């Protein structure tokens, strides 16, 4: 069941409500904070809403990203090498919020930098910077109780992952902690490697919908506007990460790519 949220943290609900009204799915884009450098990353971040991103996942770089493929590993290393820190990532978000009060931003990363910062302090600082929630890849429901209290106190959503390996017996434990939206990892594998089968994704989403009212976003392996459109027919949102991170790394018109993805998602349903 969706958690109660405070007015400050209602951007995710407001965005999905608007999408439902428009009769379309959303585009969620992932980028790594501080990659390839602070200024370039800030410019991409600030350009994402106008390019068509409905929700933004802002990656917090970590030295040991165990669930990520080579593209996002390399992005994290570039960001760390040029001095990106958790505080720097939150500062980036705070600057973004000076210009955009509506687009939901979800921080995505691994637990140790948050643990090191202090869970309470992280929740307070992330909320103050304008975050709506966080996806912590290596925090399954078994360990999630460490965060639920501080997150709830600051109106942050803990966005939980489900995977093809998450069976019916296990799903309630995941949903018990889930807020904001549910992130379905469409493949068994790491980010940016292989692509999901559209039919299997549709079946999985239907299975999840029977158990939750939360909006369902699908990610991992979505690389093209056509693939994003296919996912958008089945789910409430399609997440694109590695393919965008590659274009940011090479400077190959990342915002133009986001616009093409957005066009795909917006035209997906008749």
């Amino acid at each position: 069941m969706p958690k109660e949220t405070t007015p400050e943290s209602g951007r995710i609900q407001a965005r999905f409500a608007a999408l439902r009204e428009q009769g379309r799915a959303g585009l969620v884009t992932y980028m790594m904070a501080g990659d390839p450098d602070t200024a370039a990353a800030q410019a991409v971040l600030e350009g994402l809403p106008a390019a068509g991103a409905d929700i933004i996942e802002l990656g917090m770089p970590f030295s040991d990203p165990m669930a990520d493929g080579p593209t996002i590993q390399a992005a994290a290393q570039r960001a760390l090498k040029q001095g990106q820190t958790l505080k720097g990532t939150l500062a980036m978000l705070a600057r973004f919020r000076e210009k955009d009060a509506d687009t939901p931003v979800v921080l995505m990363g691994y637990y140790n930098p948050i643990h090191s910062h202090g869970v309470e302090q992280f929740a307070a600082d992330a909320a103050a910077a304008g975050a709506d929630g966080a996806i912590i890849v290596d925090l399954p429901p078994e360990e999630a109780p460490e965060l639920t209290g501080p997150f709830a106190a600051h109106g942050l959503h803990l966005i939980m992952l489900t995977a093809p390996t998450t069976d019916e017996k296990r799903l309630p434990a995941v949903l018990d902690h889930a807020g904001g939206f549910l992130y379905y990892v469409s493949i068994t594998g790491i980010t940016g490697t292989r692509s999901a089968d559209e039919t299997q994704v549709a079946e999985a989403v239907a299975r999840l919908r029977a158990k939750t009212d939360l909006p369902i976003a699908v990610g991992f392996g979505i690389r093209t506007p056509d693939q994003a459109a296919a996912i958008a027919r089945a789910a409430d949102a399609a997440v694109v990460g590695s393919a965008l991170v590659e274009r940011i790394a090479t400077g190959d018109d990342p915002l133009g790519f986001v616009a093409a993805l957005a066009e795909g998602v917006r035209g997906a349903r008749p």
Partner: protein
Amino acid sequence: MTKALNTYRAGADERGHFGIFGGRYVAETLMPLILEVERAYADAKADPAFQAELDGYLKHYVGRPSPLYFAQHMTEHLGGARIYFKREDLNHTGAHKVNSCMGQILLARRMGKTRIIAETGAGQHGVATATVCALFGLTCVIYMGQVDIERQAPNVFRMKLLGAEVKPVTSGSATLKDAMNDAMRDWVANVDDTYYLIGTVAGPHPYPSMVRDFQCVIGEETRAQILEQEGRLPDSLVACIGGGSNAMGLFHPFLDEPDVRIVGVEAAGDGVETGRHAASMTGGRPGVLHGNRMYLLQTDDGQVVEAHSISAGLDYPGVGPEHCWLKDTGRVEYVPITDAEAVEAFQTVTRLEGIIPALESAHAVAQAIKLAPTLPRDHVMVVNMSGRGDKDVATVAKALGSDVGEAL
């Protein structure tokens, strides 16, 4: 000592926690697999046929029990405690690693898994894993950092001879921690047929407890052997700690003996004060990596720092969660030994006893060399000779300023 517990051997709890340490910090995709390992291990542990099969292989294939050897010349040389070596270096494949590999490979077979993956640093765990895979005809993929592949070439060739595929890891610092990252990435992509054979008492629950259980044969044998040879329990135990599996295997059966002093030896590299070390408990703070909370070498920002040790097997930025808990409860002392001290001890024990120790084990010997002269002559100390040092002779030659060919 914070408080005296009724037992130090009860952990982990049902969620895999040792106090604040341990746990299961992995991606959701892996959680169901880890729960499957936990169930399968609980079944196996309760099945006498499984233990009987394991005991058979340990006896006839690994060569157990390993001897407990009274190191007469070291004892005379140091002029204090009576020093015994638990000879894990005499196991098949030359180290304690095979104890846990044998247990886990039997478990993997029981689970119907056909493909085995593992990480390795120095290559000892990789060789032990490749060995048991060859024995049972299972596909074997070993992840090894590119940097380690270059400095441990003989072990790489050994693994290939045994039929394993050795996958070079170039991400991050291209060492053991990155090899573990890539092994986890492999597992997440091969969820149906693959078993991840972790080499130490770290990783997500149940691995720290399971690997400990398989390594406890070291301490259980030691207990029986010292009772036979000395007629009483030892006064102290000393073992080196990377992830901590050889030490946990020796220590655990003695944790509830309050009169047995227990000392774990961390790799201090160039010295803890230099920042170039692998002493997670002396120089790190609690953090989360590779599925568990443990003492971890990390920056103020929570980024994992590369470890440094002359011993590739101790070159890891974390340490098993049960050790972290034993440190915080005060039951076990953890002390640092530098590269230089280990190399000195390596030479001393080689000359005096005719035993070439692994550089890892030389750290434990170095601590024994420090402690023994301060102790009375009736003090009985057991040092875990966790592995043999043939693999390390080139490294030691280099540390002494020459290459192997001209060192003599």
